């Protein structure tokens, strides 16, 4: 289990997990998270790109027997969301009832608490997706 000493482990992913920064190669292939080599063309010339956080649900599940550390939140919906820029992102859905979730449902990114560790532990925040709020 992660201990407070592991703060750096989570801190180093702030740009992706708080701002949804991905990668874009010189040939325009967008991916998330940013990688050292483009999985499509092999280019190593990759720059950061801000993703819009808008996308569609392409598949989902309801996690009823979660990994330890997530028991408090069960059951929770988890989905694959295809962003409008192309990449697919795995994340929890929030502000939605399980039976409202459907293929192609439009969603937008929000920052939420993912979990917290015991008493003096750290709290993890990151992206979740919800139906768009006007």
């Amino acid at each position: 289990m992660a201990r407070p000493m592991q703060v750096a482990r989570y801190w180093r992913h702030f740009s992706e997990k708080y701002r949804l920064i991905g990668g874009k190669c010189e040939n325009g292939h967008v991916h998330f998270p940013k990688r050292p080599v483009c999985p499509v063309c092999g280019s190593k010339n990759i720059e950061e790109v801000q993703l819009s956080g808008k996308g569609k649900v392409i598949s989902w599940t309801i996690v009823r027997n979660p990994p330890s550390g997530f028991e408090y939140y069960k059951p929770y919906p988890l989905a694959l969301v295809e962003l409008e820029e192309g990449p697919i992102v795995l994340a929890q859905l929030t502000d939605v009832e399980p039976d409202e979730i459907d293929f192609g449902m439009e969603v937008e990114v929000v920052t939420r608490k993912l979990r917290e560790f015991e008493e003096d532990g750290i709290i993890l925040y990151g992206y979740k997706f919800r139906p768009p709020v006007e």
Partner: protein
Amino acid sequence: MRKAVIIGAGMTPVGEHWKLGLRDLAVEALFNAMEDAGVDKVDSLYVGNMLSGSFVEQENLGALIADWAGLGNIPAVKVEAACASGGAAVQEGVKAVLSGLEDVVAVVGVEKMTDGWPSDATRYLAYAADAEWELFHGASFVALNALVMRYYMKTYGYTEEDLALFSVNAHANGAKNPYAMFKRPIKVDTVLNSPYVADPIKLFDASPVCDGAASVIITTPEKARELGVPKERWVEIAGMGRAIDTINLANREDLLTLRAARIAAEKAYKMAGVGPEDIDFFEIHDAFTIMAALSLEAIGVAKKGEGAKLAKEGQIAIDAGYPIQTMGGLKARGHPVGATGLYQTVEAVLQLRGEAPSQVPDAEVGLTQNIGGTGSNITVNIFRRV
């Protein structure tokens, strides 16, 4: 080029072994294999295991098991490739023999999963996924497979009932295997009425958390002759292949293609000089029913989108065209993760020697396929009667 043959195979029953620890299970399976081969020493040991550090706080399994089995100061290492650790360990053993560096190699696969809490087991199994981008979000391993299953059902128009047929087949065969964890046949309703673990995966779509160990002894035909092992007890490892795919499911180019399995199978078929039509039985990685369907497609037995159709058409039973999971598969025999590739190997050996409890008549060639991660690390091995 040298050839590699299996001359001994052994295993422990799969189950909840409350009285036996990891080392006890491994040594028991290893001794069974050595006795079966009639050897009392080996040149090296390869241990297939995935999660000993997490489940029982023990790494360095090469030293632990070789030491405990009294094998002397031989080289011994653990091979880890998630749930495909066993299949990968067999391949490392074969490579050692084929290279000429070692003549008699022992491979043992072992996993001890029931010494901890179930939710911790769920966490540890998710270590095979991408920790930062999957487990971070609370994705269990079952959940990742559930995302694939729902997408498969939607894309090709299958129902939960259709996929349940893989479990029914596995349990029917497992009922005859004295080493299987579950020895009772089930009906489609048993699957459909079981609770959801991660919708649409239900308890009976998934393999159980359990303990077990299995082992084989590998050598060359020349050495086998020298050791006095009768030829009818040799099983050739005729082909093998291994490949990876993106560890993160979301990064997959196509969610419904096990590309690593396809590449691994192509390599194995080429090395063995056979095609899917020449295989008499298939031990595929049915950790979840959806993986059975996708595996049949990836290894060239079914067209894309038609893996589940084979089950619907009744083609996967022992006496049908494409017998799979002849000793229960991961679903009914059990899936002690790092040991599974070795159970599959031992079962292939029994089929090819004509000693399987549910025997495929005149089996000459068999294929095992072992998946690590959500399709991210896959081995395919092809075995042939000598």
